[in-house]
């Protein structure tokens, strides 16, 4: 008798039920707390398990983001644009996966989900283009009464905490992460609680598309639980409250953010399919003004 491996037929193959992990500092750890939660599709059917991030995961993510900040903000704007464009390219290769996850998470038809993924990829490309144009548009040379060439330059503010939109799991997430990192900030993003899967896949895209580890950190879990720790964290320089639905909660987070004068973006009714404009892009910038003597 010759031994032959028995391959499972389609009917006997067991499902590989994955527990999706977090994305911190370029690695995919489980939550420090060991918690996970069940992710269901729009109809309530089991989709997958996701790690439920804790405050300590948020703390670790901030450390990773801070560590990555010097290198990322120190790159040339042109290079950052290339890396963002590369994200769009890698997403294109995973178009089908994103489409099916968005369809399942948001309850869209597959063709509508494809349109959402298209829009998300286009948004990365759009923001990628801004990398080396931001300084021209936002910066200025200023007329001053003295023998100085006076100019202002935009610089990244630092670590940006993003509480991503709860409804729009991919387009919304893209629309809050891309404007922060294109100018050199690093991001700690808390995903939509009920729809985290496209964000997990976006983390996998980040890991394979030249984005240095730590520039984007993705935590799946509850924004209400992790948000206050990020808002009061003194090593976080800005916070986007897009994913907070309750106005009182948003106010509390804004108060917690005041301690180290974080730049806060309050939640508002936003249509993520609309043209994003520059307001998010310019939210996370510091203007540096230089007085350079002339005529000497």
């Amino acid at each position, binding site marked *: 008798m010759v031994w032959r491996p028995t391959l499972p037929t389609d009917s006997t193959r067991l499902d590989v039920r994955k527990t999706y992990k977090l994305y911190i500092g370029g690695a995919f750890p489980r939550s420090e707390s060991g918690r996970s939660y069940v992710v269901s599709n729009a109809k309530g059917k089991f989709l997958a398990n996701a790690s439920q991030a804790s405050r300590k995961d948020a703390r670790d993510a901030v450390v990773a983001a*801070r560590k990555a900040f010097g290198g990322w903000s120190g790159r040339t704007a042109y290079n950052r644009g290339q890396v963002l464009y590369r994200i769009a390219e890698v997403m294109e290769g995973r178009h089908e996966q994103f489409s099916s996850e968005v369809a399942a998470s948001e309850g869209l038809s597959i063709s509508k989900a494809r349109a959402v993924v298209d829009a998300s990829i286009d948004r990365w490309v759009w923001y990628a283009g801004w990398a080396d144009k931001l300084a021209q548009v936002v910066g200025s040379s200023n007329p001053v009464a003295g023998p100085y060439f006076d100019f202002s330059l935009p610089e990244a503010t630092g670590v940006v905490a993003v509480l991503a939109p709860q409804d729009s799991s991919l387009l919304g997430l893209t629309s809050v992460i891309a404007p922060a990192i294109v100018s050199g900030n690093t991001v700690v993003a808390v995903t939509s609680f009920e729809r985290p899967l496209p964000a997990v896949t976006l983390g996998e895209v980040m890991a394979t598309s030249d984005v240095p580890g730590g520039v984007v950190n993705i935590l799946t879990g509850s924004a209400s639980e992790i948000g206050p*720790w990020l808002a*009061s*964290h*003194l*090593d*976080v320089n800005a916070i986007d409250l897009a994913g907070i639905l309750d106005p009182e909660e948003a106010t509390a987070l804004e108060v917690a953010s005041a*301690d180290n004068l974080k730049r806060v973006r309050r939640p508002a009714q936003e249509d993520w399919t609309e043209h994003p404009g520059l307001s998010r892009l310019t939210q996370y910038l510091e203007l540096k003004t230089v007085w350079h003597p002339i005529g000497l």
Partner: protein
Amino acid sequence: MYNRKQAARNPIRLGRVTTTDTGVDSLADVTSSEDRLRRFLLGLPGVDQVGAEARAAALSTRSIKTTAKAYALDLAIQMIDLTTLEGSDTPGKVRALCAKAKRPDPADPTAPQVAAVCVYPDLVATAKFELRGTGINVASVATAFPSGRSSLAIKQQDTRDAVAAGADEVDMVIDRGAFLSGRYGLVFDEIAAIREAAGDTHLKVILETGELVTYDNVRRASWLAMLAGADFIKTSTGKVSPAATLPVTLVMLEAVRDYHEATGLHIGVKPAGGIRTAKDAIKYLVTVNETAGPDWLDPELFRFGASSLLNDLLMQRTKLATGHYPGPDYFTLD
């Protein structure tokens, strides 16, 4: 010599060395000749490498929270030898370090002072002047730190210079080349000579465990240093990787515990290099308590050779006090 029959009658307790295990009647005999010293050191029971590492790993899983954590953080700060040992050290940098030693957290006067400031011999006078009246010791490395490759006369002079400049503690390095080639007598005599040159100052003997390779060698070097008159045994210079590790420190703590059982003397332990986070420091404190015992939870008997560790301890302290995470922007740069 190691007595197999005797060992068979009285099985050795894991990791514990007694004079009977090694077949000597008293430790005074051991140092009477190089031959006896060699026989004693080579007769020390071997360290169970897997066991030591597993024990260290198990001890690092202890959860230290709330009031115990607050106590551990303050104790760890008081145990720090705040260190700068760079070729680029300047008097200004040493003064800044001394200011930090005196008042580690300017925003919080309840933060305790560190134990000592550790510098090169030529900067001892600067540190001594800055720290006058504070009770903070000045430690100086000596004996051709970090390699220790120089003649005995130069090492003695190096030590005397540091003491003359006002050092309260001297950190010497052993001759690893001699130790590894089995010339234990030479290493012993050198430590004894430096002990004499150092006078009344506290003598810390750096074993440079990263170059000793095996835990057996670490155990032998620890006993050798203690027999030769060390007040402290210290893991590393911080210039060699790996520097301090938890298992190595565990082996050294076992050595001081066994030496205490044999002689009644308390010898201190100082891990140095590579300890950067409060979490690591607390793991070391747990290991100290579980290995040598609570007597050693005292800056007189346990120190951390570190610089960046202090900021992390202060940040954890602030986190406990305020309830939110602080950032490195609010503490001094090293």
